[in-house]
């Protein structure tokens, strides 16, 4: 794995690297580096396979992380290429020209996270959802519980008593450092 990362380092700017397992390394690059890097890897290295493309929402940082997992199917090892893009008006270059199946990934990400891949064929075409009018649901700020309560009313008759609260109440738990206790 070291060799391939050294090769990458010789050509591209790598922000960080981490060896997770003997057969799995991870590198971080700038968004602009991703497509040139992946193109080079597909054409000039054994890492020809795109296993998957995934997004992680780092809401607190205001960033999305895109993770491209490339595999060397004959050398039996994988490389995770990670990059971070701003969450606002999130846009990323498409890789569907390199791998046809990336269309589906990019379509789903577009739907679920609201990241736009200009030029990718099925952007804006619903993949899983139908008539969705809320935040892209895989974003961390989409509140599933609130959505559930708004769209699927609870079955009547459910009454739960939380033991922690109940016991405190019954036995007269009180606080004395704050007036509002």
């Amino acid at each position: 794995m070291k060799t391939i990362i050294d090769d990458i380092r010789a050509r591209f700017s790598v922000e960080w690297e981490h060896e997770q397992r003997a057969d799995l390394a991870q590198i971080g690059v700038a968004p602009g580096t991703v497509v040139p890097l992946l193109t080079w890897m597909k054409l000039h290295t054994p890492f020809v396979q795109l296993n998957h493309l995934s997004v992680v929402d780092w809401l607190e940082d205001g960033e999305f992380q895109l993770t491209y997992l490339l595999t060397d199917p004959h050398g039996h090892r994988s490389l995770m290429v990670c990059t971070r893009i701003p969450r606002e008006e999130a846009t990323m270059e498409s890789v569907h020209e390199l791998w046809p199946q990336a269309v589906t990934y990019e379509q789903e990400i577009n739907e679920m996270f609201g990241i736009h891949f200009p030029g990718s064929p099925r952007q804006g075409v619903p993949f899983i959802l139908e008539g969705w009018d809320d935040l892209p649901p895989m974003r961390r700020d989409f509140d599933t519980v609130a959505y559930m309560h708004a769209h699927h009313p609870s079955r009547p008759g459910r009454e739960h008593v939380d033991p922690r609260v109940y016991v405190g109440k019954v036995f007269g738990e009180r606080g004395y450092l704050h007036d509002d206790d």
Partner: protein
Amino acid sequence: MTTTETLRRRVQLWFGPQHPGITGNMSVQAWLEGDTLTQGITHVGYLHRAFEKLMERRKFIQSFPIVCRICVPEPDTNEYLLAAALEELSGLDREVPEKALWIRTLVLEMSRLAAMLQVLGGHVGSMGLGVVPNWTYTLRDYVLDRFEELTGARVYHMYTVFGGVRRDLPEGFAERMETEVLAKIEAKLPVIDNAIFDSSVFRKRAIGVGVVPEEWADEMGISGPVVRAMGIPRDTRKDFPYLKYPELDFEVVTTTGSDIYARAWIRRQEIAQSVDLIRQILRRMPTEGPYCAKLPNMLTWTIPPGQTYVRAEASRGEMGYYVVTDGSDKMRRVHVRGPSYVHGVSLLERLIPGTNIADLSPLMVSLQTCPPEIER
């Protein structure tokens, strides 16, 4: 060209989601010229339950009852992979006891066996030979009986968790597995062979149909019986060894042709391989010792920040879990990469043009598409 001529030339047809020939709840929006498909777009979403999203809002242990639902015929791969990913990220992987590794291998092989019996029946069922699925589903039910005995449930086992498995092997399990399952399968296989592989109906409809070009294998990440039917010996159990597979004696089954027949043949061979592997496992498994590591309090367990990708060979091909942790008691992100995501969408859509409408069902079965795995 008249309107009638256009209509005759090009008809749009929704194949599924309610169709006996479809594999699970999905549909193919197909365009036909005559009875030949010119284009197909797959549609999923009928089973979407936002598993990945739900798991981001649940404690690690609470994700177990969820992941098994990602594949009905083969839930255990999901359970194992979630456990493996989180064990790797938490360092718990070093604590998993020997016996648990064996039981996990057993469970994975049992689930592969059950799933392959089901899909082998599906192969011929999709061509209208209803009797063979009756046999294979029955054989699958025998495997489920053992699952019920081992895990407490027939379909959603919820059995493999962090640190090991949830219960020990019951006494006499190995004997019952032999007499109630393996022997019965072996007795039936020749009959099945005769009814499938020797059948002129099957041969006519399977040989040379749905051929996947070999050059797609690498770039698309095609795996499982589909890639092995191209003659490529690619198998996660050998290429990225996990659990006790390195200690088991088996060869990767391959054949050539890359058509429906070849894929069915691979599955037939792998049923026999699974039977053999289960025998090996039960023979070599330690009888004593713990089946689960000592676990921390699962209600408060936190895992340090990290990300990993783990994979295992499901009956359909390479199943992978991409898991990101952020130091909290929940996953930041879990991405389930099932083989169907590629096989059932991109590959299927690439194979559809030129296919006869009657061959669409057998084609989908041969790709062994599992829609919940696409939607998660």
